[in-house]
C-alpha cells in the first residue's frame, strides 16, 4: 500500500517571497520615465503644444519663456514640441526595428536549434554572412537605393538585428531541447509544432524579451546617430538625433539645444537598459536554478 503524501508545505502557498526587494527605486524611476515618454509621444497631437514646424524667425534661439517652455531652436521652432514629437520618431524606430528582429530572428533561432542538421547550418551561415556586412555602410547603401524614410530605416535596422536574436533563441533552444521535459513531450506523442510552441517558446521568450529591451535602447541610439549625420529620418521630420545634429551649430550660444535632446535620449536609453537588466535578473534564477 503506497504511503500517501497529501500535505504540501504551507510555505509553498506563500508564493515567491521578497521579489519586491530587488525592484529598487532605480527600477521604478526608470519605469516612471518610460511611461512619461511613451505617454507624451502617444498624446503629442492632442497636447496643447505649439506646432514643431512653425518657424518664428524673429524669436530664434530664444531662452525659456512662458510661451516657449524650453525656448526655441535655430529656426524659431518650439523646443518642447520638437522634443516630444522627436520622441515619437525615436520610439517608433526603436521599438519597431527590434520587433522585426525578435519575430524573424527568434523563429529562425528556435527552428535551427530544434531541428539542427543542414537547416541549422544554413541559418547560422546566412546570419554570419549578414553579420559580415559593415552595418553602417549597409544601411547607407540601402537608404541611398531606396530613399530616406522612417519605414525604410525601420526595416533595414530590423533586418540588421535578426542575427543577434537568432543567436539568443538558438542558444536557449539548444540547452532546452536536451532537458527531459522536452523528451517527455516527444514521448507523449506531441507534434513538433506543439513542442516548439508549448514547451520551448515559453522558456525561450524570456531571454528574448530581456534582449529585446536592450535592443530598443541600442536602436534608439543607432537611429539617433544616423539622424545626427543627416542620414536617418528625412527633414522636416525631426528626431532627437537630428536635433542634436542641428544643435551643434548653436553650441556656444545656446548649448541647451544640443543637450536637451541628448539628455532625453540618455534617460530613455538608460531606462530601457535598467528595466531589461532587471527583468533578466528576475527571470533567470527561477529558470536555471532547478
Amino acid at each position, binding site marked *: 500500500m*503506497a504511503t*500517501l503524501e497529501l500535505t*504540501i508545505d504551507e510555505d509553498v502557498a506563500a508564493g515567491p517571497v521578497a521579489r519586491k526587494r530587488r525592484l529598487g527605486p532605480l527600477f521604478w524611476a526608470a519605469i516612471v520615465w518610460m511611461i512619461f515618454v511613451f505617454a507624451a509621444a502617444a498624446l503629442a497631437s492632442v497636447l496643447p503644444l505649439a506646432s514643431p514646424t512653425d518657424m518664428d524667425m524673429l524669436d530664434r534661439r530664444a531662452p525659456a519663456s512662458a510661451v516657449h517652455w524650453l525656448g526655441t531652436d535655430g529656426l524659431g521652432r518650439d523646443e518642447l514640441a520638437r522634443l516630444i514629437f522627436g520622441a515619437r520618431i525615436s520610439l517608433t524606430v526603436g521599438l519597431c526595428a527590434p520587433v522585426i528582429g525578435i519575430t524573424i530572428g527568434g523563429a529562425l533561432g528556435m527552428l535551427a536549434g530544434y531541428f539542427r542538421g543542414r537547416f541549422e547550418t544554413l541559418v547560422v551561415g546566412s546570419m554570419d554572412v549578414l553579420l559580415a556586412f559593415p552595418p553602417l555602410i549597409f544601411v547607407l547603401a540601402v537608404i541611398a537605393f531606396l530613399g530616406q524614410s522612417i519605414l525604410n530605416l525601420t526595416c533595414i535596422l530590423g533586418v540588421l538585428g535578426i542575427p543577434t536574436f537568432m543567436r539568443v533563441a538558438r542558444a536557449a533552444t539548444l540547452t532546452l531541447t536536451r532537458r527531459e521535459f522536452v523528451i*517527455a513531450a516527444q514521448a*507523449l506523442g*506531441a507534434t513538433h509544432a506543439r513542442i516548439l510552441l*508549448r514547451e520551448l517558446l*515559453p*522558456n525561450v521568450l524570456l531571454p528574448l524579451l530581456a534582449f529585446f529591451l536592450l535592443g530598443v535602447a541600442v536602436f534608439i541610439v543607432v537611429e539617433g546617430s544616423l539622424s545626427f549625420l543627416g542620414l536617418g529620418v528625412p527633414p522636416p521630420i525631426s528626431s532627437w538625433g537630428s536635433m542634436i545634429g542641428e544643435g551643434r551649430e548653436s553650441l556656444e550660444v545656446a548649448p541647451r539645444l544640443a543637450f536637451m535632446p541628448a539628455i532625453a535620449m540618455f534617460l530613455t536609453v538608460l531606462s530601457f537598459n535598467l528595466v531589461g537588466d532587471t527583468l533578466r535578473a528576475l527571470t533567470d534564477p527561477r529558470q536555471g536554478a*532547478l
Partner: protein
Amino acid sequence: MQDTRQSPPRDPLLKVEHLVVEYAVGSKIVHAVSDVSLEVARGETLGLVGESGCGKSTLGRAVLQLRRAQSGRVLFDGQDLTAMHGDTLRRMRQRVQLIFQDPIASLNPRRRIGDIIAEPLVISGVKDAKKREELVHEVLTAVGLDPSLVVGRLPHEFSGGQCQRICIARALVLNPEFIICDEPVSALDVSIRAQILNLLEDMKARFGLTLLFIAHDLAVVKAVSDRVAVMYLGRLCEVGPSEQLFASPAHPYTALLIEAIPVPDPDVRPTESVPVGEPPSPIAPPSGCRFRTRCPRADQRCADQVPELRLIAPDQLVACHHPLIAAG
C-alpha cells in the same frame, strides 16, 4: 536444439529483437546497444540493471523510438514500432510511457502542473476541458497528491519526491499499458525512494501495468522486479527471475555487482575486492565477450567468440563461456 526462449509460453507485450543502437561522437562511434534481444510479458516487471555506460538508458529510449536504432525490431503488442513513423507512431506512443531520472527537469518550468498533466490528454484529442480536468484530478489523487493544492502551481514549488509523483501521474493519465522507468528513484533521497517505489508497485497493481524498470542499484531493482536483465557495455549478460538470479548468479559480472553492493549491516565486512580495473569505453569495446578484460575466468575463447544468451537454469539465461553455475 536448445530453445533460447524462456521455457513456459509467455504472452510478451514487448519484444526487442536484435536491437543495435550506435551513434557518432565526433569521428568516433559509440556502440551503445549491440544486438540486444529481450521480452517483457504482460503484467510483469522486468528490471534492467547495469552501471553507467552500459547502454540501458539508450535501450529504454530506443524502445520508444526516441532514438532510432541502426538495426533490429521492437514489437509492441505484435506491431513493429521501428517501422512506424509520424501519426501512427505518435498514437502508439500513448500506450507506452516514460518516467525519467530527474523529476524536476522532466517538467516544463513555465507551465502549471494542471496543464502539464492535461497535456497528454490534449495531444491524444480529448476535447472536453471538463473531462480533462476530471481525469487530471483522478490521477493526482491516485498518486497521493491533493489536486486542489497542486494543479495551479509551478514545478519549482515542489520537492523532488513530489515532482516524481507528478511525473508518474502524467505517465498514467492516458491509461497506458507499458511504462519504462529510467532510474526513477536515483535522484531522490533515501527516505523518499521507498515512498516512490511503493507508489509504483501500487499503481502497477491498480492499473494493470507492465514495467521496464531501469536502474543501477541492484537492491532497488530486485525489490520491484519479477525478472532481471543485467547489461554490460551494450550487451546482455544474464536474464532471469529476481530471486534466482541474486541467489545464484551465473555470470561473473552479476556476481561482481552483487558483491560490490554496500550492505547496511556492520557484521558483513566488505571483502577486500580484487582490483578489477575500469570498464572499457563503449567506443572501442573488447572483442568477443566484452567483460573479459575484468573477468577472472576469461580465456582465449572469450576473446574470439561472442557468447550468446543460452538457458542455464529454469528460466535463467546467461551469455558466458564459463558461467558460475553448470548448465542444469
